[in-house]
């Protein structure tokens, strides 16, 4: 649990590093990420070869930001299997052979499963990159600047903050439980109900105090305090180039073109 808390703190540390990506305007990064995710999601379920070049954008951005890709996979290790599980049953339902790799026939189900997995991984990579290169308050400020409702933005901000609060409470409660239940692995099923209830109540108490502390220091659903990097020409160029790249990959199957260079 301590490790989880430290990892949450590490996300804040990543977001304030210095790199060309960290130095970009938050709105530009947010919009590029949203466009990227939308385009990734728009690929056909059998268009695996068309989707593969979309890997280039996050890989390039990770390189530019100085954040190793493995950090992303490590931090998202709990979510990734869930994303990978999407489409896991496709091979059982869609058995029509769509291509042959040598003598092996590959069914539509396998291709759609791989496409869905790749889509999930790419979306996670892009989202993680945004959060790891932009302080969360700046992301909320960017949302507000795009007229995203104040209540929803505050909700998003507080959810992000409360993850830490809840984890802290969970750590304290788990320690207290194990100190009085030596040799027991995990929390016994009979205690789950009260444990969860207590966790919720304690987290709510702390969350209320935390929110009160924000209100008492002038928080009014605007993000004047967030680190603001003005939108410059370089941000416009970055957005334009990114979107152009996404559109190019979306409507032109680069893998196929490269393949045709070698295979007649």
């Amino acid at each position, binding site marked *: 649990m301590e490790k989880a808390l430290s990892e949450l703190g590490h996300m*804040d540390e990543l977001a304030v590093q210095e790199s060309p990506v960290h130095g970009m305007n938050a709105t530009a990064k947010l919009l590029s990420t949203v466009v990227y995710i939308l385009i990734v999601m728009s690929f056909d379920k059998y268009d695996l070869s068309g989707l593969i070049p979309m890997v280039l954008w996050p890989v390039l951005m990770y390189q530019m930001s100085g954040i190793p890709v493995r950090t992303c996979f490590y931090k998202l290790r709990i979510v990734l299997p869930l994303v990978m599980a999407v489409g896991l049953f496709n091979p059982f339902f869609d058995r029509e052979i769509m291509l042959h790799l040598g003598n092996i026939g590959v069914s539509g189900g396998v291709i759609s499963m791989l496409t869905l997995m790749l889509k999930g991984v790419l979306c996670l990579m892009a989202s993680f990159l945004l959060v790891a290169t932009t302080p969360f308050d700046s992301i909320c400020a960017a949302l507000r600047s795009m007229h995203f409702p104040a209540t929803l933005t505050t909700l998003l901000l507080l959810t992000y903050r409360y993850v830490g609060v809840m984890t*802290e409470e969970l750590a304290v409660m788990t320690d207290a439980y194990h100190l009085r239940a030596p040799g027991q692995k995990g929390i016994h099923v009979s205690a789950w109900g009260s444990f969860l209830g207590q966790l919720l109540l304690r987290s709510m108490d702390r969350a209320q*105090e935390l929110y*009160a502390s924000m209100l008492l220091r002038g928080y009014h659903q605007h993000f004047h*305090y967030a680190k603001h990097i003005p939108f410059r020409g370089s941000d416009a160029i970055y957005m334009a180039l990114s979107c152009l790249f996404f559109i190019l990959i979306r409507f032109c199957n680069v893998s196929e073109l490269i393949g045709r260079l070698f295979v007649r």
Partner: protein
Amino acid sequence: MIEFENVSFAYEQGAPVIDNLSFTIGDGESVGLIGANGAGKSTIMKLLLGLVSGEGRIAVDGIEVNRDNLGKIRQKLGFVLQNSDNQMFMPTVFEDMMFAPLNYMVSREDAEKRVDEVLERLDLQYLKHKYNHKISGGEKRMAAIATVLAMEPEAVLMDEPTSALDPYNRRVVINTIRGLKQTKIITSHDLDMIMDTCDRVILISKGRIVADGSAEKILRDKALLEANRMELPLSLIHR
């Protein structure tokens, strides 16, 4: 000036937590609010800050505490929470200290000047760019006080400022409180600290004022303290 006039408060249909309370705190006064657990000390703070609302009249510098004036009132009052973890929610101490001034539309440049001044005054420059999750409990408490001072409030309210601190850090906090020029309202069970930092003490029991007078007089009154589930400050017992 802070005024409480016939203030009462109860949670829903329960017994009153605050019962017809009236007192006035003048500018620059240092007041200790003492009382047993559940006496209503923290509720008094919450009422003053507009976090809960009751009956009666509460005013700060003549401005009544109500929904319309909350912004103005809260800008005048800096509140140091008992649990500094709940106060320090930004990634770094610097960002936490900038939070209030920027929200109150102080320019970034001026806010940074304020932060530097406060850190220098409290001798905490070394904390400026530290991550909140990496500093000790004592440092966090000092940083929490610093975040409030960066607001340049007219009065500082503190809820148990010395709880869970080691003797060294406790002394550092006490000295810091003594050095503050603002009006101070401090709730605590640490009566030695109250003795060191406050000129006036208000003793609360069951939501009512039992005694209001000089700290020297009230904190030496063994019978009065014991009747209200408290004890003489340790420094007086061991004399």
